[in-house]
């Protein structure tokens, strides 16, 4: 298991190699990539910000839970922060499993939970010069006793 939040460009091959093992027949990789448009506006670049220590901790927790719920060999997640250009990867998730069904399901679950639970924010810079924090999802917080 490997989770990181980093300012460095993400290396898909490196992240895949962290999960591969001779007993796993399937590897599923998800890469989130900066798009040149969002909500009908042209995006020039963007920047991600994270509450880094908590983000890594949350990613670790998600990976542990997903590993316990699916028959997978290993999972790795890397999320980039700082400024990113269009076309660069903001997040890479690699899951290795003996069989592909578990690999696909676990991969999907990690990205869905990441988007709802991990304290990371995205600020888009548009072609017209404006900037905006992208609307996100409110993490579920524990109920009062």
């Amino acid at each position, binding site marked *: 298991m490997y989770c990181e939040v980093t300012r460095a460009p993400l290396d898909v091959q490196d992240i895949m190699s962290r999960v591969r093992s001779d007993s796993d027949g399937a590897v599923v990789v998800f890469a989130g990539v900066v798009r040149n448009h969002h909500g009908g506006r042209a995006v020039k670049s963007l920047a991600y910000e994270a509450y880094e220590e908590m983000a890594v901790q949350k990613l670790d927790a998600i990976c542990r839970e997903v590993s316990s719920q699916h028959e997978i060999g290993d999972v790795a997640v890397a999320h980039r922060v700082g400024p990113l250009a269009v076309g660069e990867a903001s*997040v890479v998730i690699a899951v290795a499993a003996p069989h592909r069904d578990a690999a696909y399901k676990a991969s999907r679950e990690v990205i869905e939970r990441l988007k709802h639970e*991990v*304290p990371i924010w995205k600020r888009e810079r548009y072609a017209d010069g404006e900037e905006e*924090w992208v609307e*996100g999802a*409110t*993490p579920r917080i524990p109920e*009062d006793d």
Partner: protein
Amino acid sequence: MVRITALFFAAYRDVFGADELEIELPEGATVAALIDIVSRRAASAVPPGSMAVAVNQDYAARDTVLRDGDEVAFIPPVAGG
């Protein structure tokens, strides 16, 4: 009194005009009480349902009692991925 560190991220940095504040609270004060206090600083109203608070890097219920030295993060809707 308990002394906590409040952290504000992303949009909340602008809303609350700070990225980090040291705040003193009466013994037994909860997350809800702290939200009341910092809300007085808010440049614009924050829909309470959209705000998450983490105490020592774990999402916390509103009735969580704060302790001396706690790190309390005000977390706007997240948009990673």
